[in-house]
């Protein structure tokens, strides 16, 4: 009995060790760094808020996504508006122009207007999407599933030992954000996830009018679970084999005793 318990304890101990190694340390900084095993924040700017938001004026907040690992890495971000700027009167009636850029690539913004919900989402001549409007939850509309949502979205694939800048831009509507919003406050929260990928690059050289033309395609393959992956499973199979051996030895000893 004691040997069976020992085998089970051994396996459980391994499971706990594997799980603990995967969580990153908590932080509240704005440079997000992946080092191959963990994802951490570091401080570039001590400000933890967007200050002096003004009607018609763009406010920005940026995150440096840094990949210090040896593999290309997908960075994901989840966003949640906890509280829109709270007006002194009870009804919300302003909107916000919101853009999310990774480098110069638009992650969120410049989409086509939805005629069925013009008050919550509309295209704009600039790159942002107008979120909110009269009688809505204003900036909290960003949390809706058909807007930005609160689940993880892929924001950038960063090459090894490289970085990119993720920029959030928010502009309170110039006419809707009136005196009721003076000195008002709100809150948002973000969370990041990193996942290594394997780039597959294929280069084709063709000839057009006797001039060589090089076409390069790069695809990213997620390094996920695959059937028969020997590298990860091997140590655990070893543990299983040891457990089986212990059971067999214990069983034989018990049979001898009974005899």
């Amino acid at each position, binding site marked *: 009995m004691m040997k069976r318990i020992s085998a089970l304890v051994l396996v459980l101990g391994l499971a706990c060790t594997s799980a603990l190694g995967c969580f990153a340390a908590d932080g509240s900084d704005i440079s997000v760094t992946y080092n191959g095993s963990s994802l951490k924040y570091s401080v570039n700017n001590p400000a933890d808020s967007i200050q002096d938001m003004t009607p018609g004026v763009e406010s920005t907040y940026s995150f440096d996504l840094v990949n210090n690992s040896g593999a290309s890495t997908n960075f994901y971000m989840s966003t949640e508006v906890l509280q829109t700027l709270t007006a002194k009167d009870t009804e919300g009636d302003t909107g916000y122009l919101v853009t999310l850029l990774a480098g110069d690539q638009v992650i969120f913004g410049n989409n086509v207007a939805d005629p069925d919900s013009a008050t919550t989402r509309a295209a704009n001549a600039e790159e942002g999407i107008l979120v909110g409007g009269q009688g809505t939850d204003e900036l909290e509309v960003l949390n809706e599933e058909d807007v930005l949502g609160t689940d993880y979205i892929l924001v950038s694939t960063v090459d090894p030992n490289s970085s990119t800048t993720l920029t959030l831009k928010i502009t309170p509507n110039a006419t809707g954000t009136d005196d009721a919003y003076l000195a008002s*406050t709100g809150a948002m929260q973000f969370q990041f996830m990193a996942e290594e990928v394997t780039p597959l690059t294929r280069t084709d050289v063709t000839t057009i009018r006797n001039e060589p033309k090089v076409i390069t395609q790069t695809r990213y393959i997620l390094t996920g679970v695959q059937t028969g992956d020997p590298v990860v499973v091997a140590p655990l199979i070893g543990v299983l084999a040891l457990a089986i051996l212990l059971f067999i030895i214990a069983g034989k000893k018990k049979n001898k005793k009974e005899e």
Partner: protein
Amino acid sequence: MKRRYILLAVTAALVFAVAAGGTLAAQRVESGVLSLGLNAANLSVAWQGEGSVESDSEDITIHDVNLMPDDTYEFAANDVNYSVLNSEGNGNMDAYIRVTVTKYWCEDQNGQQKDADMDASLITLESEGNWTTAEDPFAGRTKSETQVFYYKTPLAPGETTSRLLESMTLSKDAGNEYSNRSIRLEAVAEAVQFVQGDNELNKQAILSAWGVYAELDGEGNITSISN
């Protein structure tokens, strides 16, 4: 024997569950949650009189001045020593300033008993040079109790305007019924955000808040105001 095989099966299931979960977890890592506050700017203006006292409203009171019809009284520096402050403690925005002055005739000498039936348009105020007024398309055809003055230069927090009034003129049309009466002036200051380098936004803000059209120079200073 049966128990042994059951135990073996449970162990195998546990090991492979760990293998699958551990493999997934090892490829994907999460960060902690980052919180970000949102803070709107604040705008606050106040009167600044003698002793730099901030107040919500101010009465401009001048004693021992006798005006005759067609007289102009030049305010001395210590007569009207009030200016508008863009409050640094309460506000953190650059702002355009305007002051609306309402004129009253009063029955008493102390300016306490207002007489709304008397013609306040007989009193004309002139502002100091850094202020301007809107072009009035109905000038001479209406009798207005108010005059509105716009400070030409936007103020940063902590800055003050120059003093508001330079002179006051009593119309030659003021008859004997205006004798032995006092004039009361009530001034209210307002502010609108100013954004450096974005005159289109500044014009829109002035129009939205004050209902007037502003012409601005390259630095954002007001050059003219029209209704």
